[in-house]
Structures are given as C-alpha cells and as structure tokens.
C-alpha cells in the first residue's frame, strides 16, 4: 500500500492542531469549527479507505489468502532516534486487524465529537464558549496522538504517543481552566497515568534490554515478505528462549519476562483506569462532555486494552501475567459496577460504567487462549472495544445533550425528561439496551462472546462476570429511569422548557444510535483475531447470530432482563424502594457512594505521605542541614576572621613590639646556636 494515505491520516490532524493552535484565535468561531470538523471528516474517510483496503482488498500484503490469515503490514517506518544500533526508535505505520479497527473507531467517534461540539460548545443563545478554537486544536492534537498510538510499529513509538494522549487528555480535562475542580482533575489524571507510565517505561526498558529491540513485529511475528509479518507464537518462543538463556532470568521470584509484561500492563492499567489506578477517570468528567465521550469512553481509555492486545502473543507466554490481568479486570469490573449504582452525577455513572466495561475487555483478553475457539477472548475483547466505543460515546453524547439542556450534571435536576427531549430519550434508551446486552443491540453480541470465552477459561470468573453484567443492566436502567421517568419534570418559573438540540448535536446521536443497533452483526471473527486467522469460512449478515452459544446467551439475556425489571420496579415511578434498600445495607451503600474511599486513600498517600513525610522533610533538610552546613562553614570562617582581626590592629607601636620580640627571639636563638 502506498504510504500517502496513512501519512495524511497522521499529518492532517497534526496540521489542524498547529493551524488552529497558532492561528485559531484570529479565526472566527464557525470557521474554526468547520475547519476542525472538515479536517477530521477527511481523516475519517481516509481511515475508512485504509481499513477497507486492509480488510477487503485481498491484497497479499494484507492477507494470506491460502491460509485465510490476515497479516501485519508496515506501511512506512522512519528512523527517529537511534539509541544504539539495534535499539532504534522509529515512527511508522503498522497496519493489522486491530490497528485498522482502531483507526475506524477513533476517526468515527472523533468526527462525531467534532461535529457534536459545534453545537455543544455554544449556549442556548448561540454564544460561543470561550476558547472554542483552542478546544478544536486540542481535539485535533488528541486525534493525532491516538492515531499515532494505534499504528505504532514499535513499543517506544507507542510510548511516545501514549504520553501525547496523556497530555492532550490533560489539556482537555482542564479545558475550563478557571474552574478549580477541573484543574485538579486534570492534574490528577495526568499524574496518576504518569505513575502508571513509569511502570510502562520500566517494562519497555526491561523488555528491550533483554531482546534488543522495540519492534512489535519482532516480539510477536515472523516476517513473510518485505515489511509484511505474520503473528505467530514461534517468534515469541524465540524471545522466550533468549530471555531464559540469559544469565539472570529470575528477579525476585518471577521471570524477567513476567516482570516486563506486568510492568507494561501497569501502564495499561493507568490509561484504562483499572483498579487501583482508576481514580482519575471519574474526576476526568470535569472536562467538556464531548471530550468525555471521545477520550474517556471510546478511545484513550481503551489504549490499555489495545496495548495488551498488541503484545498478546508475548502475554500468552506468561500465564502469570495473564492471570494478573484477569484478576485485576474482574475486581475492577465488579467494583466499578457497584459504585455506579450509587452515583448521582450522570457523567460519573457513565464513567464507572466505562471502567467496568473496559475491565470486561481486560478479563476477556486475560482468559483468551489459542486453544479455546481460536482465542475467542481476544476477538471478543476487540469486538467489545468496538461496540462499547459506539454505544458509550452515544451515551455520553446524550448525557452531554441533557447537561446542555439542563445545565447540571445531577440527575435529581432532570427526572421525567422523556417528553421534552424525545430524540435524546430514544437514543439514550438504545444505548442503555446495548450496554445492558439485550438482543439484538451491539453490546449483546460482544458481551456474550466475552462471557463465552470466560466460561471456557473458568467457571468462577464466568459467574462473577455474569453478575457484573447484571449489575450493568441494573445501573444503566436506574440512570435511564431517573433521568427520563421517576416524576414529571417541572420547569421553574421564567425558564423555558428543556428541548432537543440543534442538528449538529442530534445527527451524531442518531448515527451512533443506528450503529449501536447494528454493530453487533459485524462478523468480527473473520476480521480481528489474535493471529489473523479467519474464524468462519463464509460470512453473512447473520454470522454472529448463528455462531451464538445459546446456553450462555440465554443465561446472560435472562440476567439482563431480570436486572432491568428490578430497575423498572425501583425507579420507574417515584417510590420509597430505593431509600429502603439504602437503609437496609447502609455500610455497603456508604462505601459504594464514596467509591470505597479510594480518593481519600490517595489523598492521604499523596498529601500526608509524599508531601508531608517526604517532600517537606527533604526541603527542610535541604534548607537547614545541607545549606546550613554551607552557611555554617561560612559562619565559622567569618567568626575566626573576626577573632584574628585584632592582630591586625593598625596600631603601629604594637607592630613594633611584635617585631621587637621576634627580632629578640631570633637574636637569642642565633646567639644560643652559635654559642
């Protein structure tokens, strides 16, 4: 494939960022909006072309038609920084099933958000939000970074863009920079993910120090032609041998490879908000809602999943690392689902739901094994990534519409909005049905496959994850009813009633709702698998439907329906049931409501321990002990100079005395010596 289109895909958002960032303040608001949106639109079209070419052209660069195996293809790879002869940091474009998939997801959601923001970043009177151009510049920067991340050809390139998405996320969360809560949320997000990135970096260092390479293809694949690779465990076995043959394969009881993979996964935990590094994501909702939809629901937060998927053949070699992923994922999923049941802020509910859903993807990756249905978990994870991006972005954009209309994040200010905002109502409902896993919406298929894969791995985690799936349905419908039903909405005197939004906002909602309805039918098994092999011989619209394992599907469907029914009973009409339940389990409710006090714990660690017990004493030590020593030396010198100063009194008669005594002594000594 000619590198022109891929280069434009990366260059266009960057150019948009530079243009809007440097000259945006001189542009009119609509121009900046149109420019940004159009740029993203072009990028989206190009990404579609690329993905379409990759998946369906049958080009031998991309697919080994005989073996029905999709290949990895390096479109271009430019040396950027040569650390040593072998450790070279390159910037390139790797096209393979998951990067093609992510290209589509990112550009789609990003375009929707660009479009949507044209309406959202303006109040009811059409007054533009201050810094509107800046907003589009940052969005473009983010899109650039995220695209660079997913097409990375080597782990260091990924790290570079990983940092860049972190920074653009920081800028976007802190978009309302005069709001202290937004500032502290952005700071928190950056620092927590930075901490995770430390692990990522160390993992990269360990891995590269042993293997002498950064390239993904060297880790996971064998080369079949110039620039074309095929994922296989064989290469990975070679790496394992390399590591085991080196002199120190073990470190603190675990193999070096395990260490490297766990450290890299730590980076993924940070970005993907896995417990215990999840605390930044709920706060990140301080950013504008479109940003939450783009970054904190659909794209950046799945980077961790993407990272694990990218290195999946390596992870396959270390059972321990995969088990850690499963445990972390499962705990996070349950935790986030429980917390989501008690939150008041609708964006926070969605944030916790995002955490929970990403944890689903992680678990799915962790349980994936090649011997079970060609690595079904891997496929399911990517599938869920795709569908989740669509319906979660939809939900966030709906939430944005609600917030835009009401001016509050709180569902207590909403209640019974279904009549005022019908389009939002319908699209939100579709999103809820999709995430709850109701057939035939998108979430049903992907979640069902995750559960199937989990069951193939272990019954315990299957039951666990099914429970979480039920909780998911429950809290989403709780939210849905509390926003749109519960009791009638009363419009305060002097306010006009909330209403649906302009077309720029409605259109993305409708598009995403449609996608959420039908995304489940995409035959993912033939497009994205861990080693590129196609799962099905032939595909049709109903491939996924036919491939369902009904024993799992029916159970999960039943769980979802029951959960929805409970939610309906509790929240459809104003009634005392929720309060009763809250009183029945006060401790649990309190812990959930306060998110299990993780924030307080972190506050304690950062403020009390790091600032109070490390930084302050160090600063004190520096000022008083280290600097005090230096000052002390100066003081001693000064004092002794004062002490001997009187010798140099300027009294010439005293000098003569000293001279005389000296001369006499000298004379006496001479005399004695000569005697």
């Amino acid at each position, binding site marked *: 494939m000619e590198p022109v289109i891929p280069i434009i895909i990366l260059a266009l958002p960057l150019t948009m960022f530079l243009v809007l960032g440097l000259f945006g303040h001189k542009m009119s608001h609509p121009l900046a909006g149109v420019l940004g949106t159009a740029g993203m639109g072009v990028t989206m079209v190009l990404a579609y072309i690329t993905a379409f070419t990759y998946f369906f052209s049958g080009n031998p660069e991309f697919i080994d038609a005989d073996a029905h195996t999709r290949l990895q293809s390096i479109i271009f790879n430019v040396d950027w920084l040569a650390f040593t002869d072998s450790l070279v940091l390159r910037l390139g474009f790797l096209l393979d099933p998951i990067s093609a998939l992510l290209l589509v997801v990112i550009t789609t959601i990003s375009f929707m958000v660009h479009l949507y923001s044209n309406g959202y970043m303006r109040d009811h009177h059409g007054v533009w939000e201050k810094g509107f151009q800046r907003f589009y510049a940052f969005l473009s920067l983010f899109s650039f970074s995220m695209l660079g991340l997913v097409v990375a050809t080597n782990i260091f390139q990924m790290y570079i863009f990983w940092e860049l998405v972190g920074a653009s996320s920081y800028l976007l969360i802190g978009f309302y920079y005069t709001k202290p809560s937004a500032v502290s949320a952005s700071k928190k997000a950056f620092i927590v993910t930075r901490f995770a990135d430390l692990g990522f970096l160390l993992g990269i260092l360990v891995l590269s120090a042993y293997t002498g390479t950064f390239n993904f293809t060297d880790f996971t694949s064998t080369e079949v032609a110039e620039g074309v690779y095929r994922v296989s465990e064989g290469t990975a076995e070679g790496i394992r041998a390399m590591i085991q043959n080196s002199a120190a394969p073990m470190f603190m009881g675990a193999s070096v490879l395990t260490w490297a993979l766990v450290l890299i996964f730590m980076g993924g935990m940070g970005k993907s908000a896995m417990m215990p590094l999840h605390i930044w994501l709920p706060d990140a909702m301080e950013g504008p809602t479109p940003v939450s939809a783009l970054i904190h629901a659909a794209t950046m937060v799945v980077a961790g999943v993407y990272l694990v998927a990218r290195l999946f053949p390596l992870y396959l070699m270390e059972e321990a690392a995969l088990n850690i992923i499963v445990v972390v994922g499962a705990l996070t999923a349950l935790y986030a689902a429980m917390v989501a049941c008690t939150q008041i802020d609708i964006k926070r509910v969605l944030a916790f739901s995002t955490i929970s859903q990403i944890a689903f993807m992680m678990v799915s990756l962790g349980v994936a094994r090649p011997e079970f249905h060609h690595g079904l978990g891997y496929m399911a994870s990517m599938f869920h990534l795709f569908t989740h991006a669509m319906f979660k972005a939809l939900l966030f954009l709906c939430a944005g519409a609600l917030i835009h209309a009401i001016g509050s994040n709180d569902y207590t200010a909403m209640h019974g909005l279904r009549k005022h905002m019908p389009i939002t109502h319908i699209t939100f409902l579709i999103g809820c049905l999709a995430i709850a896993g109701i057939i035939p919406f998108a979430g049903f298929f992907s979640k069902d496959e995750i559960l199937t894969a989990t069951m193939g791995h272990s019954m315990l985690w299957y039951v666990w994850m099914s429970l979480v799936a039920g909780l998911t349905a429950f809290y989403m419908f709780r939210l849905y009813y509390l926003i749109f039903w519960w009791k009638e909405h009363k419009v305060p005197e002097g306010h006009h009633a909330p209403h649906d939004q302009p077309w720029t906002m409605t259109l993305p909602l409708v598009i995403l709702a449609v996608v959420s309805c039908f995304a489940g039918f995409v035959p993912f098994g033939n497009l994205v698998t861990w080693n590129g092999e196609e799962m099905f011989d032939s595909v049709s619209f109903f491939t996924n439907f036919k491939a369902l394992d009904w024993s799992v599907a029916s159970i999960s469907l039943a769980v979802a329906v029951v959960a929805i029914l409970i939610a309906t009973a509790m929240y459809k009409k104003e009634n005392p049931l929720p309060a009763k339940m809250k009183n029945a389990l006060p401790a649990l409710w309190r812990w959930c409501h306060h998110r299990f006090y993780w924030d307080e714990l972190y506050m304690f660690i950062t403020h009390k321990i790091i600032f109070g017990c490390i930084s302050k004493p160090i600063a004190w030590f520096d000022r008083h002990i280290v600097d005090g020593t230096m000052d002390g030396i100066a003081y001693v010198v000064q004092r002794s100079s004062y002490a001997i*100063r009187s010798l140099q*009194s*300027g*009294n*010439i*008669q005293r000098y*003569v*005395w000293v001279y*005389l005594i000296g001369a006499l002594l000298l004379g006496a000594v001479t005399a004695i010596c000569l005697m």
Partner: protein
Amino acid sequence: MEITMLYYLIPSLIMFCCGVYGFITRRNMIAILISLELMLNSVDINFAVFNRFLFPGELEGMFFTLFAIGIAAAETALAIAIIINVFRVSEKIDVRDVNKMKF
C-alpha cells in the same frame, strides 16, 4: 688604644635602641617620627662604618647612606605632611586618635 669598628658600632646600637624605645613609648606622632629618624641614622652610621673598616677601597656603603638620607628626607616630608593634615582634621596628633581609617 686602637679605635676599632666596635667602638663605632656600640654608639650606633645605643642610638638604635633609643629609637626603638621612643617609637614604642611615644604617643605624639612627631616624636615617633623623631625616633624613627634616630633608628635610620644609626643604620646609616653602620653602613658608613662597615664600608670604611671592611671595604675601604669601595664606596657602596657610602652611597647607600647617601641614598638612605635622600629617601629619609622624602619620607619625613611626606609623613609630616600627613601629620599636619591629620592635625587639621582632628586637632590632635596623638597616635591613638588616628584610627578612623582602620578596618
């Protein structure tokens, strides 16, 4: 009796010791200067004496004395100018009072 070198050196030594005594004990700056002259003078004598008794053929000692006298004259003139100046400022020529420029 032969008047040897020793006979010249002894008075010169006494003169020098007088100068030392005066320099140490006096407070009047002019008196200190006078003591200084005494010491200088005794040294001059020594130069001349050594020249005459030890190296009668040469004139180094004499010239040294000659130059010493010239320098002493210059030094005295300057010292007195300073003393008068100090006196003009402080109305005193006690050496203990002249410590404004110390440190």
